[in-house]
C-alpha cells in the first residue's frame, strides 16, 4: 500500500499544521480511511521534528530547573507501572463511528443481529474479567511502589537488617519487578544498577535506581530484550548515568529462584 499522490503535498502541510480550509477537511476524511497516508503523516511529522533540532539558543536559566523540581516535589504522585489509558486518536474515533454505523445497519438483519449480541455479550464478559484483573494488578503494583507503604523485613532476632532485593521476572513478557530494602545510601553522583545475567552472553542493564531515605527502592518493567532467560540478577554501584557493563564489585547477587 502506498501514499496517495494526490494528497502528498497536503499531507506535508498537515504535518506542520499549515493546511487550512476545505483542503484540510478533505484530507482528514481521507486519513480516516487510509492507513498508508496515516503512516506517511507520522513520517512527515518526524521529518518536521528535525527542523526543531536546528534551533540554537541560550540554555534555559537555572531558575527554570528549580521551578520545575519544586513543582514536581509538590505533586507527589502514585507511581505508574504501566500506561493503561487507551491511546486517544481522532482516527480511532472515526473508526469507531464507522463501526457503530455498521452495527446499526446489521441490526436490521435478525440472524446477524442475534450473533452480534452474543459476540457483544462475550466481549463484555471478557472486558469485565480483564478490567477486574487489571484493577487487581494495579492494586498490587500500587502497594509495592507506594511511597507511603510500610516495608517490614523479617530477619532472625538480634540480627541487624541486611540489604536484600527480590526480583520477580517473567521472561516471556520481559516483565520485571524488583524490590529492595535496607540498601546503604549512595554518594550523590552514584546510582545502583540492576543487571540481568542471561544464561549466555553479557549482563544486560535492567534499570538504575536510588534508595529512598529508608533504603527501599523499586524497579518496574525496565526495557529488556524479549524472552531472555535469566540465570541470575545482580546489583552494582555505577556513576549516575549508569553503565553498559557492570563495574566490579557486584554488591548483591541472587542466590537462585
Amino acid at each position: 500500500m502506498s501514499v496517495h499522490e494526490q494528497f502528498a503535498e497536503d499531507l506535508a502541510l498537515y504535518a506542520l499544521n499549515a493546511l487550512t480550509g476545505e483542503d484540510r477537511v478533505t484530507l482528514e476524511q481521507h486519513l480516516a480511511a487510509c492507513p498508508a497516508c496515516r503512516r506517511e503523516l507520522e513520517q512527515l511529522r518526524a521529518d518536521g521534528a528535525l527542523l526543531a533540532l536546528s534551533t540554537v539558543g541560550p540554555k534555559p536559566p537555572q531558575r527554570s530547573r528549580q521551578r520545575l523540581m519544586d513543582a514536581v516535589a509538590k505533586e507527589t504522585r502514585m507511581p505508574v507501572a504501566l500506561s493503561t489509558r487507551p491511546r486517544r486518536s481522532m482516527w480511532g474515533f472515526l473508526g469507531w463511528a464507522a463501526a457503530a454505523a455498521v452495527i446499526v445497519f446489521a441490526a436490521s438483519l435478525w440472524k446477524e443481529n442475534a450473533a452480534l449480541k452474543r459476540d457483544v455479550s462475550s466481549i463484555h464478559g471478557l472486558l469485565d474479567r480483564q478490567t477486574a484483573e487489571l484493577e487487581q494488578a494495579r492494586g498490587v503494583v500500587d502497594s509495592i511502589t507506594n511511597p507511603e507503604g510500610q516495608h517490614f523485613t523479617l530477619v532472625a532476632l538480634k540480627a541487624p537488617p541486611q540489604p536484600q532485593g527480590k526480583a520477580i521476572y517473567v521472561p516471556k513478557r520481559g516483565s520485571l519487578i524488583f524490590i529492595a530494602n535496607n540498601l546503604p545510601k549512595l554518594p550523590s553522583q552514584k546510582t545502583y544498577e540492576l543487571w540481568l545475567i542471561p544464561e549466555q552472553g553479557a549482563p544486560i542493564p535492567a534499570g538504575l535506581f536510588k534508595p529512598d531515605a529508608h533504603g527501599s527502592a523499586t524497579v518496574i518493567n525496565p526495557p529488556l530484550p524479549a524472552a531472555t532467560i535469566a540465570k541470575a540478577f545482580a546489583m552494582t554501584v555505577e556513576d549516575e548515568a549508569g553503565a553498559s557493563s557492570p563495574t566490579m564489585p557486584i554488591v548483591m547477587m541472587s542466590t537462585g529462584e
Partner: protein
Amino acid sequence: MSSPETRGVAPDLAVVAAMRSGDQSAMAELYDRYSGIVYAVALRVLGDTGAAEDVLQEIFLQLWRNPGAFDAARGSLGAWLAVIARNRAIDSLRRRRPETDIEDVVLAVAPDLASEADRSRAAEKVRGVLGAMPPPQRSVLEMAYFEGMSHSEIATKTGEPLGTIKTRIRAGLMALRKAFATQYST
C-alpha cells in the same frame, strides 16, 4: 549500537521507566537532557524568554503528571518533546487553546538524542540541510514551522501561488528525510 559518546548514557526509556515509578531524580535527568531543545524551540517561536520558560515548565510538568503519554512507539523522546514544544509555543503565539493533545503526537522515526553528542550531531546535520536549500524554500519551511503560518498566509505574505508553497514545503521535508535516511536504516 551505541556510539563511543553514547556509551554509559542510560537509554531514555530506562530513565522514563524510573520516572514512572515516581523517581524525581529521573525527572531531573530528563530535564537536563532535553530542556535545552525544548527551550530553544519555544524561544525561537515566541521570541520571549519568559513565555519560553512557561512552555518549558508546562511540557516537563505534563510529562511528570502523565509519563504514560510517551512510549517507544512515539519515536525518540527528544524529538517528541521538541515537536510538543513547537506545537505549544505556536498555540501560545496565536493565543489559542492547545490544538494537539500530547498523546496524539506520534513520530515514525527520529534520531536518538540521548547524549549531548547525539544532539549536536543531529542539529549540525539539520542546519547543513537547511543551509543547502534554496533560500525561498528554507524560508517557506521556517514560516510554517516556527511562525505557525498556514499555506494561504504564507502565499499572501510571499506573493507566491498556493501550489508553489505546497511544493516547497513538501520538498523541504523530503530533503530532511533523505539526509537522515541512512541513520534511520542503520
